[in-house]
């Protein structure tokens, strides 16, 4: 084990929560509403139920050997060469994911808030702070996350509460009658962010103090995060309407703009927006951390963060070139991301699980016969 730090169950839960919200908190309402129309929130709800089932599977995988992380498991189960190949694929995916997240926060800032600042500058700033966290290691990241968690949590909660006066339930009626096919199909793109990305926590689970409580924390974190995603989608639909939600690139920010309590508490959307600066930041840090950890395993290096600086170069290059414009990026997220992520979030874990179970049973049989 090259990661020597240990984090507590509470820290782990918070990390999972932040990761689940991540970039999805600003983009998911638009993604699901585009296809599910008024039933967008139901699509998100069903996607999060499927997401929870996936988490159950990841937990069973980590139970194969509590002390091994994702990359060690792959090598242990498939042998050195196939294991390495699978690790390499997963690493490429995470590299892609990290770059995508970085691009998303860059796009958000440069369309909504800082329109004149070059996107590269925003991304470099974000990446530098993330690099700093990766260099300092998992323990420090988890403690930092504990500090910022209350802010993110209560800001989002406040957003949900403060828009309730403008909720209009008729905007989502009739529930589940129109566009049924679209609603069910919308589950797929909704799964893509973030539920098919949650498997990266198999790489962090071994570093939580008590494995049993860690698994519980995994479920609680995803559950709480999903609740917020469903609630925010619901609010976007009932306050802004399906059309406006689907049309906006970042509907949650527009939702924040509608807050107006007795003409006194107004123009506070940026305070809410800082909440997802934190969630996206920790998503990037965790992805970056797992990427760097996996690279160290791949090349059998001694520290988790040895390759973090070169990786930062890769990420920034990929984040700049992965889409020429926002429409291209949106098209990619809407149609291609979920199937692409499904290979890593469903296919590979299922393979690992099946082969792993067979291997464990064989081992048990051998020990029994002996």
């Amino acid at each position, binding site marked *: 084990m090259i990661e020597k730090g240990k984090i507590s169950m509470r820290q782990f839960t918070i990390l999972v929560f932040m990761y689940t919200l991540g970039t999805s908190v600003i983009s998911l309402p638009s993604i699901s509403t585009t296809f599910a129309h008024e039933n967008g929130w139901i699509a998100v709800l069903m996607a999060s139920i499927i997401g929870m089932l996936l988490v159950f599977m990841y937990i069973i995988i980590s139970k194969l050997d509590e002390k091994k992380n994702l990359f060690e498991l792959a090598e242990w189960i498939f042998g050195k060469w196939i294991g390495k190949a699978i690790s390499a694929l997963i690493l490429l995916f995470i590299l892609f994911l990290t770059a995508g997240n970085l691009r998303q926060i860059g796009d958000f800032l440069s*369309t*909504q*808030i*800082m*329109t*004149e*600042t*070059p996107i590269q*500058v925003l991304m470099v700033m974000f990446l530098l702070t993330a690099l700093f966290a990766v260099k300092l290691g998992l323990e420090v990241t988890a403690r930092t996350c504990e500090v910022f968690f209350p802010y993110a949590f209560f800001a989002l909660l406040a957003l949900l509460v403060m828009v309730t006066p403008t909720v209009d339930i*008729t*905007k989502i*009626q*009739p529930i589940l*009658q*129109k566009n049924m096919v679209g609603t069910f199909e919308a589950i797929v793109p909704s799964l893509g962010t973030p539920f098919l990305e949650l498997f990266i926590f198999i790489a962090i689970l071994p570093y939580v103090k008590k494995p049993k409580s860690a698994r519980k924390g995994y479920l609680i974190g995803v559950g709480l995060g999903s609740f917020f995603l469903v609630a925010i989608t619901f609010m976007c639909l009932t*306050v*802004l*309407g399906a*059309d*406006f939600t689907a*049309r*906006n690139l970042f509907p949650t920010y*527009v939702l924040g*703009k*509608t807050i*107006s309590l007795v003409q006194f508490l*107004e*123009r506070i959307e940026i305070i809410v927006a800082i909440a997802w600066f934190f969630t996206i930041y920790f998503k990037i840090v965790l992805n970056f951390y797992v990427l760097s950890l996996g690279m160290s395993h791949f090349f059998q290096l001694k520290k988790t963060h040895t390759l973090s600086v070169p990786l930062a170069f890769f990420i920034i290059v990929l984040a700049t070139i992965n889409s020429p414009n926002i429409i291209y990026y949106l098209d990619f997220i809407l149609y291609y991301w979920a199937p692409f992520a499904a290979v890593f979030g469903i296919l590979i874990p299922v393979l690992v699980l099946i082969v792993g179970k067979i291997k464990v049973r064989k081992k048990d049989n051998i020990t029994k016969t002996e």
Partner: protein
Amino acid sequence: MRRKLTSIFFVLLLSFGLAGCWDARELTDISIAVGLGIDKEDDLFQVTVQLIDPAEIAGKMLSSRSASTVYTTTGHTIFEAMRKLTTLAPREIYLGHLRIVIFGEEYAKEGILDALDFMSRYHEMRTDFYISIARENKASDLLKIITPLEKSPANKIFSSLEASHEFWAPTKGVKLDELIASMSSEGKEAVLTGLYVQGDPEQGTNMANVEKAASPADIKVDYIGVFNGEKLVGWLNKEESKGVNYLENEIKNSMKWVNCEKEGRVSLELIDSKTDVKGSLQGNKPKITINVETEANIAEVQCTTDLSKPETITAFEKKAASKQESILNTSIERAKELEADIFGFGEVMTRSDLTYWKEIKKNWNQIFANELEVEVKAKVNIRRTGTINESFFDDVKKKSEMSE
């Protein structure tokens, strides 16, 4: 030594950041726009902005200069016109504090989609300003009026819209998200409140306008403009407008009067109204049933009547209810004339019978105008009679009769 050098290098590197952020804009570099008017002149967009002068609004030394300044330009697109304005205005125009957007009537008749796209796309724009139409006028003329009481005319319109929306039923404050939602919805048409100049518009642009106690020209909020799709097709007058708000469940505090048995009137203060709209299919014809339940207090009595009797109250309740029904019916009739379903009855039908809706949604506006049967049931509950119960009208009248 090397350590020192690298530290110095990093300090230098960091100092690049101090050169400033790209998006920093000081208050002295921007001028805040509070009103935006959009007209069409031949083929060009005419954009008018009303900027406020912070020194005149909040400064201690007040000069006789106007607190707001109006600039107008034209351009092939709205954005072009906006950017052209910077050649006229002394500073960069900031739209984040916009209070009101006004469309000229001519432009609204041609369709307002271009403006709506610009407003929802432009990042400085929020959704918390009111949108309205300059009735029988151009938006640019309306923004030029200098108003009493409020230093900035746009602010004056904003607050009177907000106040009248709450206390006076015939107007309706519409914001961007609501407008887009009802314009793009399949079973609903949009409405916007009208603004017009009362008095002499020429005098209104003069500072002298606010030097008199009763200003010669002022901006009035009245009438509701009805859209069919993106185009303005007609107006509801005061009486016809009232029903729109009743149906939208948006009456917070309004008034109405009913006739007494003999002569004189009784004013009712409406406190709360709940509207329940249901759709159904009767044979092959759509039917809408509207139930309005209103809570009211007696605010003013101008006739001899015995308020202590419960029967009197019931009689007033009935009268008020039938009056309310007729108000709603007038609004609905007028909307039918204009073939614009501004009440969202189509949405109601969607909710109640989806298969039927799918069949007829293409020609819903014709069905709305010709076939749709609307039944209105109103109920008024009078709860309180103010701080006194029986009016002294009676006693005083009797006394004067006796002396005769």
